[in-house]
Structure formats: C-alpha cells, structure tokens
C-alpha cells in the first residue's frame, strides 16, 4: 500500500507538472494569451507609390521594403496594382530589402500599393541576423571656416564625452543647438532633420565614427505619415571573459534620436530602410512619391497567433488549431467532457448527491448544449414523466421487460416529435434542435429510470432524477463558459492537471456532505 501511495503521488506530480509546464510554455514562450478577449492590433501599412510616366515606355521602380519588423511579425505582405507588375526582391549590402517592380509598357500616372500587415509577436522569438557594421571611417575632407568650426565642435564634444556612445549623443545634441555659432555655420541655414543628420555625420566622421541614416515609420494610426530619420552606429564593447581571461569584443547597432540624442528605437518604430538613398527611384518615371498610411485593425489574439504560427512554430502547427475549423468544433466539445465528468465526480463523491448512473448526467449535459438549459430541463421532465407513465401503464399488461421497454422508447420518440411540433408552433425554435443525440440520451435515461422505479420505487426515481438534473445542469453550465472552452482548447495541457486532480479524488476518504446530515443523529447523543 505504501509503494502504491508513492507511485500515485509521483504520478499525480508528473501529470500536474507536465500539464502546468505545457500551459506555461504556451503562455510565456509561444506568447499565447489566456483569453480570447485579449485583442491585439493588427497593423496595416499601405505604402502608396505614385509617379508619372510622360510617354509610353517600360518602367522599373526600386523600392525599399522593411527587412525586419522590430517587435512585430509579418502577418501578410502584398502588392496591389491595377496592372501586371513583375516583382523581384533582393537584398543590398547594408541588409536592406529592395523590391524591384517593373512593367514593359505603360503611360500616364501610375499607382502601386505595397501593403504590409504586422502583428504582435507570437511564438517566433527568432530575430533576423543583424548585419555587422564597421567601426572606423575616413574623415570627410573639409576646408576653411567649416573645418575650424568642426574641429572646435569635435574637441568640445570630446571633452564632454567618455566613449563612442556618449560622443554620438553629445554630437547630436550640439547639432540641435542652433544658437551655437559653429553649428549655425555648418547647417548653413537649413535646419531640416535631413541636414542635421548630414552635419552630425560630418562631425562624427572627423572622429572616425561611421554612422548610417535609418529611415523609420511609426506604428500609429495616421495618414500620409512621413518617414523619420534616425542615426545608427555600430559600436563594439569589450568585456573581460572570466574563464579565458581574454577580452571579448561584442558589437551592436545603437540607434540615436536625431532631435535629442537619446538612444534606442521605440517599440513601434519600424525600420523601413537604411542609408541615404531615396525610398523609391523610378526609371522613365517622373515625380516619384511615396506616402504611408497606417491603420490598426483589432483581431482576436488567437486568430493572430494562429495565422502567425502556422509556419513559424512547430508546436502550434501540431495543435488543435491546425485542424479544419469544422472538426475543431467537435474537439472543443470533446475536450470539455472531462470537466463535465469532474462535476459529476464532485457532486457524487464530495457532496453525495445520487445521480442516475455515472456518466448519464454528462450525456444529458451534452444534450442541453443543443436545447439550451431551461428548455432542456422542461423537455427532460416532460418526456421522462410521460415515458414513466406509459411504463407504469404497461406494467398491468404483464409484458416481458424487453418488449415493454421497446414500447416505452417508441412512445418517447412520438412524444419528442409532438413536443417539437408544438414548441415550434409556439415559437420556440429550440424544439427543432432535438437531434438524434439527445433523443438517444433521453430514451436511455427513461430505460434506466424505469428499472430504478421497478427496483427502488417512485420516491427513489424522483430523488435520482432531481440529482441527475442538478448534476447535469452544473456540468452543462461549466462546459458552456466560452472563456473556459477557449482556455481548454488552447491549453489542452490543463487536461493533464485535471487528470492529476481526478487521481487525487480517487484517494478522497473524507465524508460526503450528505453524510454529515445522515450521521447527525450519532452526535446528538453525546450532548
């Protein structure tokens, strides 16, 4: 007995930890939300590329598209045009993705839409391999007053900074200080972000620090959003490795805000392309222009996770969500059955209510799913009462059990049909919902009830029917909570936890609540 106890404890522990582990894995590694009410934004970015083709000719455009999506994942990507454009994708040396759209013959104003939909990251934690930058560059040659001003600024910056990172921040801060005479001289009266970037690059090149221009788009609902310019630099840092006692150098891109010199890209910034080249160039086209509009559409989190992970995550690819939708409904129902059984287990073993058989209440609860609770209870009561009445009448005819039951079942079916017609005429559509399944369950129930009547009497039948109805209603209510159904279906590991709990219940030795009443008489005596 002792070894069995240990065995059971280990088994319970394994089941519960396995179940909880799988839930935690899905939640925290795959980022699957606990409820389907958590809605997430699906960002749709439309880049509208327009240009004019003055005379009929072949046209090819070169358009940068994002190579990485920061904290997001690509949901879908498409090109929307009214003409057949050929498209070729390539990657350039700094890691940009370039789309070439070309067409043999066209004329007049042209519009191409590039649509990118981004969603929060589910499942995929893989990051695209970052390109490695250089850490040294030649100074941009300068002359005269500009050189003097630049040198003065650089030595000033050097005095107030300690490393490359603070040097760059400090340089950007200086460039934004338009009152500074040296800066004003370098900006030459043009204080656009683009020019400030150029001046910052110039200053940093004097200190041999290479920088790149980064063009980003912000994920916020907007129309005609301009791209923002950021500055980035590849900075290496050395750390002393304790084991080998050698210096390990690691490099990383740092992003600088061009208006205040702060470091780090915000979460909602998407790098569209890197470099000084224009976003779009068109061969044989005039006035190329790109305008961005961004919208957020709400989608339930799970539909996003589904779409995202279909190819990216093996785990979800083998989850219930990979099944066809219609089959999913069936499994949704099936996975809830153990919880219905749990209710019966608690009602019988802990509360001590008598029910008809062990799993009949679960079957009745399933039948309620098709009829609804109030209608289902009324239906159950009417049909079983009539069934039992017919049975007790047939009692007088002294028929054999099997033929008597068959007659009862036939009458039950007639009753169901009649009730369906009446309830339909009275405007209850549920009457029609009585499918084959509840019919079978009802007839089975009447068969069992009539046997109970025979063996234990009418009072007992009433008691057991009430217990069964209470248990089935509870089971039905639990099995119908949509959040719960979603949870079980999405985190099937919870069934293992449930199995562990059921095993524990298998060793439940406590009193049933009804026994407390039953044995009350034994305690009165003592007082």
């Amino acid at each position, binding site marked *: 007995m002792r070894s069995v106890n240990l065995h059971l404890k280990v088994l319970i522990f394994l089941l519960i930890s396995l179940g909880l582990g799988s839930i935690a894995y899905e939640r925290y590694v795959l980022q699957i939300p606990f409820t389907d009410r958590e809605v997430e934004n699906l960002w749709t970015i439309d880049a509208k590329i327009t240009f004019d083709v003055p005379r009929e000719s072949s046209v090819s455009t070169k358009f940068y598209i994002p190579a990485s999506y920061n904290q997001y994942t690509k949901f879908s990507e498409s090109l929307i045009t009214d003409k057949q454009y050929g498209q070729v994708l390539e990657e350039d040396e700094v890691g940009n993705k370039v789309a070439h759209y070309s067409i043999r013959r066209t004329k007049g104003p042209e519009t191409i839409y590039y649509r990118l939909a981004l969603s929060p990251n589910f499942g995929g934690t893989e990051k695209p391999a970052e390109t490695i930058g250089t850490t040294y560059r030649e100074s941009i040659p300068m002359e005269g007053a500009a050189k003097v001003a630049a040198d003065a600024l650089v030595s000033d910056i050097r005095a107030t900074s300690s490393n490359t990172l603070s040097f760059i921040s400090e340089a950007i801060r200086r460039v934004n200080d338009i009152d500074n005479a040296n800066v004003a001289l370098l900006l030459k009266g043009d204080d656009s972000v683009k020019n400030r970037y150029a001046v910052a690059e110039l200053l940093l090149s004097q200190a041999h620090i290479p920088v790149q221009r980064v063009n980003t788009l912000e994920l916020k609902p907007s129309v005609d959003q301009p791209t923002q310019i950021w500055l980035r630099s590849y900075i290496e840092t050395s750390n002393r490795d304790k084991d080998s006692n050698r210096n390990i150098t690691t490099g990383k891109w740092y992003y600088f805000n061009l208006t205040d010199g702060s470091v780090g890209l915000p979460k909602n910034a998407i790098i569209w392309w890197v470099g000084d080249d224009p976003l779009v160039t068109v061969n044989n086209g005039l006035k190329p222009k790109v305008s961005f509009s961004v919208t957020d559409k709400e989608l339930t989190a799970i539909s996003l996770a589904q779409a995202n992970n279909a190819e990216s995550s093996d785990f979800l690819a083998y989850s219930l969500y990979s099944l066809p939708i219609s089959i999913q409904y069936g499994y949704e129902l099936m996975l809830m059955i153990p919880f219905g059984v749990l209710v019966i287990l608690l009602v019988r073993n802990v509360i001590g209510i008598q029910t008809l058989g062990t799993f009949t209440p679960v079957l009745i609860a399933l039948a309620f799913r098709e009829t609804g609770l109030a209608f289902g209870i009324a239906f159950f009561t009417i049909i079983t009462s009539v069934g039992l009445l017919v049975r007790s009448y047939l009692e007088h005819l002294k028929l054999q059990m099997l033929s008597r039951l068959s007659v009862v079942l036939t009458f039950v079916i007639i009753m169901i049909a009649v009730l369906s017609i009446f309830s339909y005429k009275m405007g209850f559509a549920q009457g029609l919902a009585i499918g084959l399944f509840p019919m079978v369950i009802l007839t089975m129930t009447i068969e069992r009830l009539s046997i109970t009547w025979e063996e234990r009497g009418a009072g007992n039948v009433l008691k057991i029917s009430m217990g069964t109805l209470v248990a089935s209603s509870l089971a039905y209510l639990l099995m119908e909570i949509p959040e719960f159904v979603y949870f079980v279906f999405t985190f099937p590991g919870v069934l293992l936890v449930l199995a562990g709990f059921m095993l524990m219940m298998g060793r439940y*030795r406590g*009193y049933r609540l009804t026994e407390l009443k039953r044995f009350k008489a034994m*305690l009165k005596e003592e007082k």
Partner: protein
Amino acid sequence: MLTMIKRWRALRKRGVMGINERNGDFVLKYNNRKFYPYVDDKIITKERAIAAGINVPEMYGVIETESDIKHLRKILKDKTEFVIKPAQGAGGDGIIVIGDKFDDYRYKTVSGRLITLDEIEYQISSTLTGLYSLGGARDRALIEYKVSSDPIFSSISYEGVPDIRVIVLMGYPIMAMLRLPTRQSGGKANLHQGAIGVGVDIETGKTLEGTWLNEIIQRHPDTNNHVSNVTLPNWEGFLELATSCYELSQLGYIGVDMVLDETKGPLVLEINARPGLNIQIANNAGLAARARKVEAHLAELKKAGKPAESIAERMAFSQQYFGDSMVESLEG
C-alpha cells in the same frame, strides 16, 4: 459552514466511516474483485457454503433459461413454503416469499396476497432477463427453503423475517446489527426500504438502540415494543458463522446476513461485499475506529511473525474489544 466543519471533526473523532472511506480504505483494499462472484451470485455462495459446511437455507432448484421455467412445477411439487430470488439481485429486489398454497394454481405470499403460477413464472422470466441484477446482466432464479422466524422476534418484528448482519473485517467480526422488517418496508429487512436497524453488542448478543431512516428510535413503530435489551439466542453460533464467512468468501471486508430459523438455527442468507453504513447509527459507534483496531492487531501479529488466527481466536478478540463496555475506550 462552521457547524459543518465541527460536525465533520466530531464524526472523525468518533471513527464514523463514510462511503468514500469504506470504498477506498476497505472495499478496494481488502476485497479482490476476482472473488466477487463468490458473494454476488447467491447460488455460488450457497454451493461454496455447503462445501465448507456452513449452514445455509436448502436450495430446491435453479432456473437458468426461459425453457427451464417449465420445470418450475416439478421443482415446487407439493411445497407450500418457499422463496424465489434472483441469484444476482441486490437490496432484496425481485424476491417472492410464499408462505402457503391456496389451490393447485395459486399460492399465498407471506403478506397474504394471492399469486398465480403464471405470475410467478412472469417474475422468474423478468429475473432471467436481468431486471433485478446489477447492471442488467442475464441472471438466474433460485428457489430455496423459506426460513421461519424464531418466535423470539415476534414481539419486535412486523411480518417477514428479521435478519442479523455482521460486518467482518479480515475475519474479525467488528459490528453487528439486527434488522427488523416494518409495515413500511413491506416485510423486507432492508434499511433503505424502511426496516429498523438495531445495534447488537458483539460480546453478549444483546440488542442496543434502534435506528429507523437515519433516526434513533427506542420502540418498534408497528408493535410498539422496546427493541433494546433483547438477548439474541445462539449468539455464539451467529458470530462463528459470520467469522467463518471470511474463509468462504475470500473477501476481507464483508457484511454477512444471517437469519435464525425456528428449526435449523442460524443460517447464512447472503454475503455483501459493499455493506451499508447505517449499522453505525444503530450501534451508535464508528466502524472506522473498530476497523483500525483490527488492522493494528493484524500488524502486531505480522510483526511478531505469528500465523493467522483461527476462527475461535478471532471471535475471542472481537468479543474482548468490541463489547459494549469496551466501545467508549476505542473512541477519541
């Protein structure tokens, strides 16, 4: 809620056994399923009892198939008293007790109802289809000797035959109860049908208080006589019979139902592998407390390397520890 918890703890303290505890710690632990047919089928029980020399009501015949029913008349012949019961029935369902013959075609049940041979055959046919058996499996009908109740019970029993149930754990009788039929129970001795349960002192065979539908009572509702302080005749014989049913059934936790026949003395009627718990109310004592005592005793024997005790030794142990005077010391 608080009173519930208090009651829970008070019951635990008294060693009152609940259904979950009975199922888990006793029935599942001590009763090997493969021996269940020994007790679930009354015909097998009877055959094994006869082989072991244990007194049971004589078996007149068995009807196994529909076509066997035609042998009924031959089995009954000129018998005027007999009982027909399903071999696998439970809770006293489907039993006909015939007390007299009216004419060639009609019999009289003990409750005075006239019943025709056709009706008896119909009941047997229902029995064979499994109407009264557990789970509705096909069954056999058994025709046996009708016990005539010892007159000692006439003052405290209404019709029917009172029976004596003893709970036996690993061969040690731990609690006993006398079950008295009432008008409500229709002459049957089943507590859930309204019969009275009266506790019996294991040591002396003297009746204690009674319980009727979970209430404690002093007097029989039909005869108005006190049910306590009646000394059961041949108590040692009953105890020995019950104790020996452990060897007969091979089951560790059983309820043995016995009757006292006017002429044949104590007889074993049936053995139950899942005996009910109302016996505790009748005895005003907890089964678990007594069962733990036996388990401790068995563990001691095992530790000392002693062999299993004989029937007489086991009876002596139970009478020493489960007598009414010893009960209080077990609790708390």
